[in-house]
């Protein structure tokens, strides 16, 4: 199956008294797209937020268990979550363009504020990131315009460029197309397929067709537990667990 980039080992997560993830163990393979599917409130987003240690930034949130990145537990005491977040980028459901920054600075912010100074190098990395996010041709002539002047789909690709600029190893995507129109969404899907050559991608989606189009692996979550995991085609065509089949056939969701 390939190299295991991330391994979750009996992960539990809480928001206050709300036990969101329950004894969840899962392997994420390198340079592939793993789709996390499941009904609303099943813990999909929380799972992503546990992987880049964003979960703990919410008041009252807790995590137990181990998340191994290249075999090293990111919850060990000697690990700085800030370093983890530089290695594991994240794209959110609502595309974020910082309203006070230009398109250029929206991409460069992670580099600039992490102390990257070389202007020529910065220009090069911004261009590369925008090209890789398939946005360069649309914005090359107006890099100094405000980021919020972009359309929703462009903002989402801007957010992807911002994540790519840091050369992360893993990119987490939390329903990246759900706030976009179908055309803009299709562009993001094409982009995801291209990006997996260089990055390990974990995609949360409530859209089973989307998972079928882009995912190599699918994990089905229900009420905070991992119900089924396997190669995408196998899970979609012949689910081993009845609950998965019921979800896939639309009996609930």
């Amino acid at each position, binding site marked *: 199956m390939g190299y295991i980039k991330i391994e979750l080992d009996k992960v539990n997560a809480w928001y206050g008294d709300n036990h969101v993830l329950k004894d969840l163990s899962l392997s994420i393979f390198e340079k592939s797209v793993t789709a996390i599917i499941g009904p609303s409130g099943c813990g999909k987003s929380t799972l992503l937020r546990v992987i880049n240690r964003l979960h703990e930034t919410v*008041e009252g949130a807790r995590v137990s268990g181990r998340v191994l990145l290249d075999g090293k537990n990111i919850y060990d005491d000697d690990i700085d979550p800030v370093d983890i*977040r530089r290695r594991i*980028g*994240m794209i959110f459901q609502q595309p974020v363009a*910082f309203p*006070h920054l230009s398109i250029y600075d929206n991409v460069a*912010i992670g580099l600039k*504020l992490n102390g990257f100074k070389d202007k020529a190098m910065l220009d090069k990395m911004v261009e590369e990131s925008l090209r890789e996010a398939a946005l360069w041709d649309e914005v090359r002539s107006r890099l100094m315009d405000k980021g919020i002047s972009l359309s929703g789909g462009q903002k989402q690709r801007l*957010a992807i460029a*911002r994540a790519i600029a840091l050369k992360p190893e893993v990119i987490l995507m939390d329903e990246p197309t759900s706030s976009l129109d179908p055309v803009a969404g299709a562009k993001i899907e094409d982009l995801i397929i291209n990006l997996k050559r260089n990055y390990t991608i974990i995609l949360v989606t409530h859209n089973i067709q989307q998972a079928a189009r882009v995912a190599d692996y699918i994990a089905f979550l229900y009420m905070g537990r991992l119900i089924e995991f396997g190669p995408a085609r196998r899970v979609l065509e012949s689910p081993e667990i009845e609950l998965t089949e019921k979800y896939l056939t639309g009996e609930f969701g």
Partner: protein
Amino acid sequence: MTINLRVRKIKEKIFFTLSYISIAITLIILGSVIFFTFVKGINSWSISFFLSPQRSPLDPNQGIAHAIQGSLLMSFLAAAISTPISILAAIYLSEYASTAFREKAEYILDAMAGIPSIVVGVVSYLLFVLPLGTFSAFAGSMALAIMMFPLMTRASQDAFMRVGREYREAGLAVGLPKWKVSLHIVLYIAKNGVITGFALAFGRIFGETAPLLMTALGSRSFPTDIFAPTSSITLLIYEYSKSPFEIWINIAWGASLFILIMNLAINLVIKFSVGDRRWVI
């Protein structure tokens, strides 16, 4: 039915009339304050009014220049002291504090903002005048800074808390430490709210008298030493308007007009620089 309908219509009319009369009274009172201040004050405005300090009460060639300088000195010093502290305190409350702590702090700050300014004056007298052994611009500035602090902290905190969580998370997600997210993202996005809070607080302290009575005391001449008694426009108005001299009383009106216009100007400048149409005077 028709009687009921008529009663209802009459009630509606009475309520409408009452509210209409109320807003008319409010606007008339406000308008007459501005009108009287203008009519009584404009005559004393002259070149020497703005350029000369206090002179003998019978000398017509005198002005409020020393008080304007004192007011500007103390207000800007107060702003320089309280602005960074207020912004950092507001960042703590909105970005770091637990909900329980934040609610307690908000309660205390709101109470602090409502403390009568004479009390701030007395406290500042104990803290800054007695130990230094003299009334001073410094003590006056500290008193004004104490007044400014809760106003600006709460206004900035509200502005920070209106910034959506998605911007913070997007910042954290590119590996920024929390303090950089606060300083480079939240503060910038909330900038207009912080400036508005600053303007309100600055306008408030610029017109304060009571805290300065107990701290800056007042002076006849231009400020030269921040550790010496210093005048302000409001102190001058207070002193002159009690005096028996016609020239001084006229100058007090002129100074009142000046401070009124200053406050309107501060608000207008901020309003236009922020481009915030919701925030009119």
